[in-house]
């Protein structure tokens, strides 16, 4: 056991810090935090800079444009960029979900076509899993894919698809054999979002942002070579996607929380509440939760580095993070008092906390609701009988 960076890791961390200081705009750390998400074109430009400097896909194989480094480098990258509040790479779905899935299940052609383009930010992916009638119960997807010659004709509707309005491709889960039920008879495609018959409608969230979308698919033709893995094996491929979503997400989420913790401390000071013992107690309580997450991620990371699979302890990261982030952002609003009613130019940091707090309510719903995650923990990790 040793939590210190190795010599190589320390060198990488120092180099990254210098690079961030040189590349981010002057006085970046002193600016008030950005309200909401960074605009997409800014993120695309930033992604390119990260890619050119070799900071994207640190753990991906070098033959597909990655860095071929151990997972600890990705952890360092997320720690450092989270601490300074750097913008995120534009390819969230591609890097965290589509890319790893294609690497594991994809053909050589698919790997060559997509992996490097995901890293550079040239190609943006979205995810087409959830449907209006198929949320937590993913096995009930009903979007139909019917074989017709050398391609499939797809009809149906997907929902909660972030990035779909700008995406070039979609990882799409369909039912290809209606005679099969549940986990069988599903097929996983890479859908070209520019295909005829694809329509995207933004869904406005409680923050006012249209971050998610509905995707309507009407007689969309997808060539058979765009299937990931084999027809009928879509459920297993989707499980790979979700494993990576939940497995590697922990670090990104915790680094986001660490940024919010730093901003919470700053807010406490700015509103003059630093001497209030109740405030001090709650801030310290949140800090304990953050530290618990941070070190649990590191423990899971060690398991990942030793065995190639994230440890079971990592499965609690998303559940804990989402609830801690909700507590933290609600507490920030409480600190603002009646000023919490104001956002925009008249608000504290132009409504930064108001956006963060409203957005946090989605955290316990997206990427597996807290109820589904508790079921998973109880059934798969503790070994309790199934609830259904």
């Amino acid at each position, binding site marked *: *056991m040793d939590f210190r960076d190795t010599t190589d890791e320390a060198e990488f961390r120092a180099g990254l810090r210098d690079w961030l200081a040189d590349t981010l705009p002057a006085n970046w750390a002193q600016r008030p935090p950005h309200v909401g998400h960074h605009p997409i074109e800014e993120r695309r430009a930033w992604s390119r800079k990260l890619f050119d400097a070799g900071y994207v896909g640190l753990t991906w194989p070098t033959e597909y444009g990655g860095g071929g480094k151990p997972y600890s480098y990705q952890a360092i990258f997320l720690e450092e960029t989270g601490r300074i509040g750097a913008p995120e790479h534009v390819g969230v779905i591609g890097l965290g979900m589509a890319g790893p899935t294609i690497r594991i299940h994809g053909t050589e052609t698919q790997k060559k076509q997509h992996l490097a383009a995901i890293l550079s930010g040239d190609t943006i992916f979205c995810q087409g899993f959830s449907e209006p009638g198929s949320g937590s119960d993913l096995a009930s997807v009903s979007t139909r894919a019917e074989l017709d010659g050398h391609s499939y004709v797809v009809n149906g509707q997907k929902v909660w698809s972030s990035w779909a309005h700008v995406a070039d491709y979609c990882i799409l889960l369909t039912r290809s054999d209606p005679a099969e039920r549940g986990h069988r008879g599903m097929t996983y495609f890479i859908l070209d979002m520019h295909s005829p018959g694809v329509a995207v409608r933004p869904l406005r969230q409680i923050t006012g942002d249209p971050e998610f979308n509905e995707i309507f698919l009407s007689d969309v033709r997808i060539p058979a070579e765009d299937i990931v893995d084999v027809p009928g094996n879509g459920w297993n491929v989707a499980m790979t996607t979700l494993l990576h979503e939940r497995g590697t997400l922990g670090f990104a989420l915790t680094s986001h929380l660490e940024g919010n913790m730093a901003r919470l401390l700053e807010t406490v000071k700015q509103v003059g509440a*630093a001497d209030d013992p109740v405030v001090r107690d709650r801030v310290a309580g949140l800090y304990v939760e953050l530290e618990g997450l941070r070190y649990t991620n590191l423990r899971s990371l060690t398991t990942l580095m030793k065995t190639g699979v994230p440890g079971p302890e990592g499965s*609690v990261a998303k559940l804990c993070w989402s609830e801690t982030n909700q507590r933290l952002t609600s507490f920030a609003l409480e600190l603002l008092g009646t000023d919490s009613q104001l956002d925009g130019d008249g608000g504290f940091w132009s409504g930064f906390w108001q956006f963060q707090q409203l957005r946090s309510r989605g955290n316990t719903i997206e990427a597996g609701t807290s109820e589904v995650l508790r*079921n998973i923990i109880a059934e798969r990790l503790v070994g*309790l009988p199934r609830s259904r």
Partner: protein
Amino acid sequence: MDFAFSEEQEMLRAAARSWLKAHYPADRVASLADGEQGWDPQSWREFGTLGWLDPELGVLEYAVLAEEAGYVLYPGPWWSTVALAGPVLGGLPDEPTTLAWAEAGAPDLRSAASSSATSATRAAGAWTLSGTKQRVPDLAIASSVLVVAAADGGTGIWRVAVSGGDVIPVSTVDRTRRLAELRLDSAAAEPILAPGSAGDALIAVRRRSLALLACEAVGITQWALDMSSAHAKERVQFGRQIGSYQGISHRVADVYTALQLARSLAYRAAWAVDADAADVDEAVTVAAVSAGEGAVLACESAMQVLGGIGFTWDHPLHRFYKRAQWIAAFDGTSRTHRAELATALLG
């Protein structure tokens, strides 16, 4: 970055788990806890034979043993000797040894360094101690006790044979780690740390004892989780195993979650103490909050899952619960630990 125990440490864990499981089943711990002495003195020799008192063990090995001892609720002065006496002596003594620091109105380890109403005097080359020490862990079953006392030049630490003072046991909720008052009246004492040098030693004691108690709390949490899940799989009501009801399973999932966070922080605290890391005080404080609260939560949750049986004296759960509460109140509470963290965060 490497967050894993070594192969040797994992072997030590496996050996400790199987030995403790065989020698400390719940009914034996119950009869020891309800008995006069509160432990089996034979275990000291057995620990020696097993190599658990070897001088080459470090804090990470102690962390492993503390967790496994917590899992069976081993009653005995191992923790006192390793965590309270060890850092003062700079090694482990041959016989069970504890530390007496608290006095009326001054229960904390660190405050003991600044003043003491217990006095040490030297006459004709021999030291004697006089005064009253409170809440000394495992005092009645230790052979000797290290006593914080004041002399010209400040507070130092002396060793006294337990038989050299009056030991007055006090009634404690947890009967597996008892406390006693120590009254000294010109008791013969051997100097261990010179007057003026108790401060650093007491800081080292606090770090090691909080880190190892956090590991012990993790053992208790794991036991309570295992107990809850075994019961939830076995118990049938309304025609179904109760673990299939989300009212039960989600409660258990929350304990699993708390256990993972506490375990990460407890191990990291042990490493920070072992490596004398720059952030060691923060590490042990954070671990104390997380693991102490986690163990109490796990036992309370287990009591709810078990229903009436878990509320009886005959079931082992209450002993684990009371030890968890003991840990959560050692040298501060979550409230005072958080106040300390707030000072580091907000000034």
